């Protein structure tokens, strides 16, 4: 998982021209290559999961290309500008969230979209990046571990957007936004006594939100998670079918485009949130473990880059982006395999859907700017 393994590999040496280009573009080679591999695997899986739809594949590849462009462009931005833009992005994101709250379009019963006339997008996506960046900005000049007052400010900075998004209702995104901010605080060296007391607080908060915050369908999901058979037609259906798909895949899988659960449309949302089950059915345990290892490499490499960064802001921000990505992967695979309740979190780079992929790539672009770039400039 370290940089040396790849640096010394033959691939790297034969691609010196490419490597130089990557360096000139301030991109981290191993991470860039790993991301492209994830994207390629994702597209192959999506083709099967979408019932061999070329249209969907094309759309996904377009988005991946768009994400790559966003990543490369953001990697060129000097870290100082990113740092100074962080609080601005947070305020802007909050204003947009409020705008959505009052006049957003309602799609699929949830109020998440803002129509700007030429494009519709979810402001909550901005918050996935703005919250961790703003938290890192807030902490970068303060002594660490953070003082109690700083923690209170951070709690507001994370809590307000999280609650607004949870009310939209979009539990998955609000979870990721909270995780992004929370990771910054943890990485900043939050004392263990606070960690313990937050865990202690979670119990009453969970009870409170159960009664006042969660929508009925969200409660239903939690209840069904605890006992999928209680509601085999509704939300339990997803869990049961995805476990059948994964389990029947066995070690080697049924073969590409041959998953009967997925191809006969027994598996719901197979091209979006439940795409991991398609991999499991068609490629078996081997395929799934390969994908998980690929993801773990991306996360590990990103964490390593974060640890080598030279200033507090870069470390905290990129560390949080790396760990948020980990949360993505864990929550999605956990829910598809029945370890976690069903919350709407896609599998990054594999699930069909646009905004999340572009946001993720943008996040990696920022990470590369903060880490890869400094190495070059300072030496």
């Amino acid at each position, binding site marked *: 998982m370290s940089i040396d393994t790849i640096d010394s590999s033959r691939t790297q040496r034969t691609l010196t021209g490419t490597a130089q280009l990557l360096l000139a573009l301030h991109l981290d080679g191993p991470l860039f290559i790993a991301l492209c591999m994830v994207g390629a695997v994702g597209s192959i899986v999506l083709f099967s999961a979408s019932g061999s739809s070329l249209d969907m594949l094309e759309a996904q590849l377009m988005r991946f290309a768009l994400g790559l462009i966003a990543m490369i462009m953001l990697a060129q931005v000097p870290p100082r500008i990113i740092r100074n833009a962080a609080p601005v992005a947070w305020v802007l994101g909050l204003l947009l969230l409020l705008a959505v709250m009052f006049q957003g379009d309602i799609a699929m019963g949830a109020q998440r979209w803002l129509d700007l006339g030429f494009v519709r997008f979810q402001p909550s996506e901005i918050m996935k990046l703005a919250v961790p960046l703003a938290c890192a900005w807030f902490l970068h000049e303060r002594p660490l571990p953070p003082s109690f007052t700083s923690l209170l400010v951070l709690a507001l900075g994370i809590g307000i957007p999280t609650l607004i998004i949870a009310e939209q209702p979009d539990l998955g995104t609000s979870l990721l936004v909270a995780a992004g901010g929370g990771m910054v605080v943890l990485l900043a060296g939050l004392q263990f006594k606070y960690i313990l007391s937050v865990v202690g607080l979670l119990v009453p908060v969970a009870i409170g939100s159960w009664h006042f915050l969660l929508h009925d369908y969200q409660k239903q999901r939690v209840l069904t998670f605890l006992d999928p058979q209680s509601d085999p037609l509704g939300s339990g259906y997803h869990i049961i079918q995805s476990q059948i*798909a994964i389990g*029947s895949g066995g070690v080697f899988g049924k073969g590409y485009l041959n998953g009967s659960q997925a191809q006969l449309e027994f598996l719901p949302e197979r091209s979006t949130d439940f795409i991991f089950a398609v991999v499991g059915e068609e490629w078996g345990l081997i395929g799934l473990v390969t994908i998980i290892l690929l993801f773990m490499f991306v996360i590990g490499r990103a964490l390593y880059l974060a640890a080598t960064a030279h200033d507090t802001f870069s470390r905290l921000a990129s560390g949080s982006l790396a760990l948020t990505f980990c949360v993505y992967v864990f929550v999605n695979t956990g829910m598809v395999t*029945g370890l976690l309740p069903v919350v709407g979190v896609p599998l990054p780079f594999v699930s069909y859907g646009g905004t999340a992929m572009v946001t993720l790539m943008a996040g990696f672009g920022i990470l590369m700017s903060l880490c890869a770039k400094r190495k070059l400039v300072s030496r």
Partner: protein
Amino acid sequence: MARAVRIKDHHAESQLFEQRAIIAAVLMVIAMGLVISRLVWLQVVKYDYFADLSQGNRIRIEPIPPNRGLILDRNGVPLATNAPSYQLELTKEQVQDIDATLNGIAEVGLIDKDNIPTIKRDLRGRRSFDAVPIKLQLTEVEVARFAARRHQFPGVEIRPRLTRYYPLAESSVHAIGYVGAISEDDKKRLNIDEYAGTTLTGKNGVEYAYEAQLHGKAGMQQLLVNAQGRSVERIGNEAAKLERKEPVSGNDLFLTIDMRTQQAAEEALRGQRASAVAIDPNNGDVLAFVSTPAFDPNLFARGLTRPEYLALTENPDRPMFDRVIRGVYPPGSTVKPMMALAALDKGVVTPENTVYCRGAYRMPGVSRPWRDWKPGGHGPVDMRKAIATSCDVYFYGIANEMGVDHIHDYLSQFGMGTLTGIDIPGEKIGLLPSTEWKKKAFRRKEAQMWFPGDTISIGIGQGYMNATPLQLAHATATIASRGHRFKPRLVRAIRNVTTGEVSELKPAELPSPHVQDPRAWDIAIGGMYDVANAPYGTARGATANALYKIAGKSGTAQVFTVAANEKMRKAGDLAEHLRDHALFVAFAPVEAPRIAVAIVVENAPGGGSAFAAPIARRILDTYLLTPEQLAEQEAKKKPAPAAAPPPRRGEE
């Protein structure tokens, strides 16, 4: 500054970060390890189990819709039931070409070509293995016609299902409401998981308001299907594992409506645009709830064709319109007993104060007189006689003395100008004006001012004031029970079909109107008793020979304003839609009231006493008397020519 200023230590921070990053990496490995071990569990350990479920025969889950709860009248007469019927269902994943199939079915004449886009939209939202109904309630001819061509349409099947059936058709449709196909809006409101296999949901009235009680819980059964998705019956080791969860039927509702009374009221109002409500003053039970003309709710359960729908919505008499809770009318003189109570509460008069009525009221400083309905006037009247004769001049006077804001505050204690809170949706609030209201209601400054003249017509229930028939019945019931107020309700009890247990709902008592002296009720009720019984009572004709004692109050609501200098015109001279509305409120028996009614007949051929009062009488008779008593009462009537009471002008 007692505390030391903490200084940023970059080296220590970098170390701290590294330490945290390592912890995070370890946690990540643990989390992913958890996922992988879960995968091993699913894909290696339980492989055989899941492979069984998935390979060869697959298990499909089919929803079993629950039986919708019945709706019964207070004595158990069924008003809404479930009847077996055949419907055409299409399963998407079994149909090769949906367009061709639908067009083919349209050519056979089973569905309308114009409906195909709607059906396709509905199909899009369903899971590919759901059997989606595309035509409900097939006739026997249609069933036969499809059966003959069934081989042409794989994936389309006829299935027996239960649909909603209203055996009494139009009767009490506005109270019961109806069911119709689940719409996009319904899907947002309902938990659609519970509606798998269900096509209909409550759209209005009790069917809508008590949807959660009526619907029940969907059940499911697992079916073995082959690779094409067809269900196969197989006896094997897997068949034993097939699960079946029985649906839970919805609960039955006992309404408060008394069907005998309801139908008598419907009969009496037939042919009119009118409404009648009867309430039990002791608990708020709605005994009759009639709005005419009505419509057949069975049409909605079956699915209306476009012409049928247009015929309903474009009918000028508006059969879909629920006049009982949504019709607002000037209450006219029916508010006079409440006005009397309001005046006594404020202390502007005593019951004994006598006013000499000369047929017109003049306000100091205003030349225009307010006329009484009776040109010559009523002579000396005290409060009780003022109610009995419906003397306008008396009420003009006390309204002027009370002021509109006291009237507003007092009458709202009877539920005027507020929602009564009946347990079905859509109730209108009516209008109980006040100075505050006028300020808000008008844009122009000049119009916002409340003039003393505005108050005077409020005294006889005219002017800005209006109310729903339900509000009038509710207020009358409140007077009948001397201030005991109950939220009107249509559902009396709920029966759990599984256990057979009937749980009675408790009446909801509302705050009583304030009275200075309980004897005020005697005056108001006494006045209403005299309306129906005293020689000078306006409605004595309609209450003659009753075996029980009736108290009532008539009212006439102007639709067409008669200019002050114009002579009163006969009702017959006006175009039908400009004729006055006839109102009557009543309760009986006076000593221990069991029923209070309000009748409103739009553009009636006669006034409140002449036209609406006999309808009220018929409702009271039906509810209070047994058939034998009715016959006895009939016999008391003189066999002399049943000369209808001379057409009297109602009170203005």
